[in-house]
């Protein structure tokens, strides 16, 4: 009897871990889906709108997460530096505003205005995009490169290695990834991990 119990515990564990890894979004090299999401300026935005882009810095972020807020200035800097080089920032707010009212569209518009967001700040209203990408928290970055097959996932993870102190950052993961793509070099660190706020679906 104990064996049967153990067996099912193992089955449950395996399924659990399969769910957490395999069934949970993109891996490096996968082709990322496009989307059509409403931005804070009222326009619908898709990756396919950016005809001249070489790729994208897709960032799942929100108003309410302290980690996201800590990175706002660095997200602005990324867009300033890389939009003109063909890698614009596309920010997607993945939370359910009914669960987290501080992330509703009105609050997003206000935040984008007060911080002077220069990039599209989109709401994933149907909450279908973050699960497809496999984003579990904010902030979380997907660097995509336009290829003949579509937008290929090249980097997944954190913006850099110090959320607290920009001055103490030693590895600018996203910058390094985009620089590598721009110069045709392999990306050294394609996946990194950081603490973040769980996405509220």
């Amino acid at each position, binding site marked *: 009897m104990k064996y049967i*119990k153990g067996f099912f515990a193992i089955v449950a564990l395996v399924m659990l871990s399969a769910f957490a890894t395999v069934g949970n979004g993109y891996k490096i090299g996968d082709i990322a889906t496009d989307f059509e999401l409403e931005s804070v300026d009222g326009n619908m935005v898709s990756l396919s709108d950016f005809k001249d882009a070489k790729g994208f810095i897709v960032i799942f972020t929100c108003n309410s997460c*302290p980690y996201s807020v800590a990175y706002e200035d660095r997200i602005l800097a990324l867009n300033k530096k890389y939009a003109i080089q063909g890698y614009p920032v596309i920010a997607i707010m993945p939370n359910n505003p009914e669960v987290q009212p501080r992330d509703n569209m009105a609050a997003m518009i206000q935040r984008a205005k007060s911080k002077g967001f220069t990039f599209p700040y989109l709401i994933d209203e149907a909450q279908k995009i973050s699960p497809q990408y496999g984003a579990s928290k904010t902030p979380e970055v997907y660097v995509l490169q336009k290829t003949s097959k579509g937008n290929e996932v090249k980097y997944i993870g*954190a913006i850099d290695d110090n959320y607290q102190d920009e001055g103490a950052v030693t590895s600018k993961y996203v910058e390094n990834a985009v620089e590598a793509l721009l110069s045709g070099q392999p990306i050294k660190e394609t996946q990194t*991990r950081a603490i973040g706020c769980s996405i509220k679906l």
Partner: protein
Amino acid sequence: MDFYFYGMRLFCLLLLILTASCKDESARNGTMDDIDHNEDYSAVSLDVYDFEGLKPFLKTNTDKIYVVNFWATWCAPCIKELPYFEALNSAYSDKNVEFLLVSLDFPKKYDSHVKPFIKKNNLKSKVVALNDNDSHTWIPAIDPDWSGAIPATLIFNKDKRQFYERTFTYEELEAEVKKFLN
């Protein structure tokens, strides 16, 4: 019969995973708004560790069971489940189970938020803070499957360990701890 039972349990488990992400993070500071800032919280002790310093808390050679919860005062689903950890701590005080609450709050919040929270809620579990920017190293070291989202919980004894990137109710947490008691 048992097959059916465990099959159902598995199904429920999967259902639970599917619905577990429905978390409520209502306010950044949760219940912290009514903290009296004139009160002196400096007497509240809060040991701060980097990951090297925390490591000894994450393994054991004794017969004790350890429940380690990663949380922060700004994380509403964390705050919501903390009372269950506290309640289980007192209910299992004679069962050789030890609880540790690891705060991931920003260091500048230790005095303004974490210590007041400990005092106001009269937390009985040991609370420490982890301040280590190299999360890219220590998150997978704690568990390879941890995405970095909180709340997250680690339960272990000297023989086995289990990691949970999810929230708990009292009953769910008790059920997990019981698996280690047998």
